[in-house]
Structure formats: structure tokens, C-alpha cells
């Protein structure tokens, strides 16, 4: 039994241990003490990331049935599968913080939880499969690689696994566009038109400019965010420009220019009003994305319940011993 004085001393020791782990770039693990705000931020960030993966399956899933070659069909199926898997890894990581997957699903389908706005755009052409791989996954990789060193152990480990799988995603997108740019005039037009639509939204995936991002500072202090929005965005643009040259595609930004002094590419102002519109639910496909997820989840309830009922009966726990029939 502790006295009040000893209680206060324990709390400080726990906090000190937490700070020490963060400062040492070490890992905070599920049973370690952590500030409530850290836990809440992580649950929000990880579950949002997981939701993004799951919702992200839809814009591409839209083209599996119409993929124009069997090889592309196979690759697309494998990619979307990976995204389901990534969602699962992340839900598992979030679960270690004390929230159930069922609850996270509930938040998603009731619209309480957010996911990356980029998936609220539609995919009207095949070339969008290329743009999503090259630009959207490319941006995601820039965001994700630093997260492999996130302070929270399960999150960092999930991200490491995801990063390994993600590199194929960007390459397959790039190669789709490359093939189109080497193809017929119609295919080339398709590719350019698609990039014209996806370029700015992809850049906005890094979030608002630093001065408009209040949460970032705390996340960076806790080492669950390693670089600022603007830093990552700049890094991404610098990588894209030479890649666009290989493709022979024009990035739709007349202000894009190498700046010798800074050693980076200058790029034009982004239309943040569109970002906030999409974020507020007025994007092209917000309602459709959530509705589709909701339907799959609700339609599948009887299947999940059947499996549970079977398990309860066949794998009954008797007196603490597991008996499989």
C-alpha cells in the first residue's frame, strides 16, 4: 500500500522512464506506462492509417474486373490484397493500445474516424492505377519510412513490414504509366490526363503547411512523427521531378523550377480549400467509400457470427483446458 507521497514519486518515475525511452530513441511497448495523450494520439494516428489502407482498396478494386491484361489484373489483385494486409497489421498494432478492432470498424463506418482524403477521389481511367501507385503510394512511402522508427514498438514494427511491401506498389504504378507513355497517342493522353488530376492531391497527402498543423509539434516531440509536413512534401517533389522526366510526363505545375540556392525544386501554391472540402466530406467519393465499407461489414455479419458460434461449440474451453474436437 502506497502513501500519497510514494504515489507521487511512482508517477514521476513512470514519466521519467517514458521520457528516457523517447529520448534514447528506444521503443515504448504495450505494457509500458505512457501519458494518456500519447496513447490517444497513437490510437487516432494508427487507426486512421489502418482505415486509409482499407478504404484505399476501393479506388483500385474498381479496376480489377476491367484490368486490360492478365498480368496487370494479377498485379492489381496482389496490391489490393497487400493493402488489406497492411490494414490488418495496423489494426493489430492499435489493438495493443486497448481499443478493439470491432470498435475501430464502428468508428469508420459511422464516419467518426477519419482516413486519408486522397481516397475520396474517383478513378475514372485505367491510368489512375498508375498515378495512384506512382504518386499516392510514393507519397505514402515518404511518410512511412520515417515511421519505421516510431517510438511505439508495435507501430514501428508494423510500418517496417509495410514499407517492405510498399516498394512494389510504387514501382508497379510507375511501370503502368511508363507503358502508357510508350504506347498509343490515346494511352499517352490517358496517362497525362490522370497525372494532371492526381498530382496536387498527392502533394496534399503530407498535410497542411507546418504553420497550419497544430498537432505536429507534439507528435514530433513524442517521436511518432519524425519530419514536418513541409519537409516531407519537399522531399517528395524533389524525387518526382526526375521520375517524371523518365516517364516523359509533364507535372501540372507551371511554377515547378529548380532552385540552385536552396538545392530543391520550388513548386507552386496548393489549393488548400479543396483539401478542406474533401476533408469535410464533400469530396468526389466520401459517401460512397464509407457506404461500401459499411455494406461489406454489415452483409458479412452473419458469416462472422456463424464462425464464432461454431468456434464456441467446437473449441470449448473447459475448466481452463482447451479441448479441440
Amino acid at each position, binding site marked *: 500500500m502506497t502513501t500519497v507521497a510514494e504515489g507521487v514519486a511512482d508517477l514521476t518515475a513512470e514519466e521519467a522512464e517514458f521520457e528516457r525511452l523517447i529520448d534514447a530513441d528506444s521503443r515504448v511497448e504495450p505494457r509500458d506506462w505512457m501519458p494518456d495523450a500519447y496513447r490517444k494520439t497513437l490510437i487516432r494516428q494508427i487507426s486512421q492509417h489502418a482505415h486509409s489502407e482499407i478504404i484505399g482498396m476501393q479506388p483500385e478494386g474498381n479496376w480489377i474486373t476491367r484490368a*486490360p491484361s*492478365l498480368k496487370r489484373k494479377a498485379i492489381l489483385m496482389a496490391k489490393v490484397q497487400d493493402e*488489406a494486409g497492411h490494414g490488418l497489421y495496423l489494426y493489430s498494432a492499435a489493438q495493443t493500445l486497448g481499443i478493439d478492432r470491432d470498435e475501430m470498424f464502428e468508428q469508420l463506418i459511422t464516419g467518426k474516424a477519419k482516413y486519408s482524403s486522397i481516397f475520396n477521389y474517383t478513378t475514372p481511367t485505367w491510368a489512375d492505377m498508375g498515378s495512384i501507385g506512382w504518386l499516392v503510394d510514393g507519397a505514402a512511402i515518404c511518410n512511412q519510412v520515417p515511421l519505421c522508427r516510431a517510438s511505439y514498438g508495435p507501430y514501428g514494427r508494423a510500418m517496417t513490414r509495410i514499407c517492405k511491401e510498399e516498394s512494389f506498389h510504387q514501382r508497379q504504378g510507375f511501370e503502368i504509366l511508363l507503358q502508357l507513355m510508350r*504506347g498509343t497517342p490515346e494511352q499517352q493522353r490517358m496517362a497525362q490526363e490522370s497525372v494532371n488530376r492526381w498530382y496536387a492531391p498527392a502533394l496534399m497527402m503530407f498535410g497542411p503547411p507546418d504553420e497550419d498543423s497544430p498537432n505536429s509539434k507534439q507528435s514530433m516531440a513524442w517521436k511518432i512523427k519524425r519530419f514536418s509536413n513541409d519537409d516531407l512534401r519537399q522531399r517528395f517533389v524533389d524525387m518526382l521531378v526526375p521520375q517524371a522526366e523518365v516517364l516523359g510526363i509533364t507535372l501540372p505545375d507551371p511554377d515547378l523550377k529548380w532552385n540552385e540556392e536552396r538545392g530543391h525544386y520550388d513548386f507552386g501554391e496548393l489549393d488548400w480549400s479543396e483539401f478542406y472540402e474533401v476533408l469535410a466530406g464533400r469530396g468526389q467519393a466520401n459517401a460512397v467509400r464509407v457506404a461500401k465499407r459499411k455494406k461489406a461489414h454489415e452483409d458479412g*455479419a452473419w458469416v462472422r457470427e456463424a*464462425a464464432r458460434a461454431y468456434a464456441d461449440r467446437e473449441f470449448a474451453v473447459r475448466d481452463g483446458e482447451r479441448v479441440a474436437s
Partner: protein
Amino acid sequence: MNHSNHVVSSAITAEKIADSSVVAPDAHAEYALALGDDALVLAHRLGEWITNAPELEEDVALGNIGLDLLGHARSFLTYAGSAWNRSEDDLAYFRDEAQFRSRQIFELPNGDFAQTIARQLIVSAYFVELYRALAESSDETLAAIAAKASKEVAYHLDHSVQWLQRLGLGTDYSRERMQAGLVVMWPFVDELFRADPFAEALESAGQHGVAVDVTALRPAFDALVPRLVVDAGLEVPELPAARGGGRGGIHSEALGPMLAEIQVLARAHPGATW
């Protein structure tokens, strides 16, 4: 192309067949095309479950099964195409409905999860027997395709059986749905085991041991699947067999819209590479 963690395998693939100088004899190609169509159509149906499955783990599982089948299809189609200087994509995207030779069970709509599992149970049991026999084919390429497929379809059958049990013995509602799924699919069992005209053509041309006589596979199916159904608390439907005709290009109304969707983009850009 070398991505990190890339494991170099010796398993047969469509790319390997295309890159090799193998040219299928005409009669072998006709037979392979039929087998390819079965796998292609089913792979497409399973692909439709992605983003719609009852749980994320099933999006992955059904996706895996679909990818396995797509792999079989691509290998068969590539091999068949070698006889006529046509690629797998020429065959998949530029043939009309009457030129597809898939058996009708594969094109039927997915229905709900139970209906899909009902089909998976039936066709996986069929594929296990088919590929086991085809792995002994005197045609090396067909044997190699079947050898890889054999291992994969054994897993597909296991997946089907696990779900058959869970749905049959789960809740009253799931049992009802599982029974309904069997009722939809069972009339199409017969067609799977009717003599394959392309296999018969090989036999009558004196080319023994290339193709599998599927009529000989029926006893093994009958010894296994009905028992599985009953063990899962369900009844084997007693229904007249569907007329079928898939091997002759006769299809249900489901195939047309499916092919229209599959082929629309490729056909909009004939001759293009993707």
C-alpha cells in the same frame, strides 16, 4: 527486376512458358484453352470479392485463391496461344462469348458468401482430382502446370471445407444460406464430369495420356463431397442436372455481361500494350 526479398523460384509461370520456345501442338492447345477458360472465369469471380468479403482476412484469403487460379489460367492460355501465335491476352480479351469453353459452374454469379463457398467446395474437389491426374500428362508443360496447381488447389479445398463446416454448423441462418448455396450450384456438378470433347479429340487422334478423362474422376468426387456436406449438417440437393454445354460455347446469361466488363478497356484500344 529485383525487388528486396525476391525469392527466385523454379515454379512454372506464364512468363516462363512465353519466354521458352515451346510451341503447343494444335490439339494440345485446344485442350489447354478449355482448362484455361475454367480457371480464368473462376478467378474473375473470386476477384469480385475483394473489398466485399465478410472480414478482411477473407478479402485476403479469397484474393489468394483467385490469384492462384489466375496463375493457372495464364499458364494454360499462354501455352495454348503458342500454337497459334496468340498471347494470353489475345485469347482472354479478344474472343467472343461463343468461343469461351468454360463449364457453366464457373461463370455463375457469386451470390452471397455461402453460395461462393458452395461453388468452391465443388470445384476445388474437382480440381484436386483433375490436376493430380494431369500432373501425369505426357505433355510436359501441362504436367508442370498441373503439378504446381495441385498443391494450390489442395489448400483451396481445405479453405472450402473449413467454411462449409462453420456455415453448416454455425447458426440457423448460416445453415439456411449454405443449403441455399448448394441448391444453386449442385445442378452444375454433372457438367464438370462430362466427357471433354477436346480430351476426346486427343484420344481419337491416338494421343493418349495427354488429357484427363474427367468421367473417371466422378467416383472420387462422390466418395468425398456428399459426405462433407452431410457432416456439415446439410443435405445433398436432389435436383436435375443443368443442361450445360460450356465446352461447346454454350453459356448461361451470366457470362456475357462478365466478359463485357473484362474486355471493355482492352477492346477500346486494340493492339495496345499495357
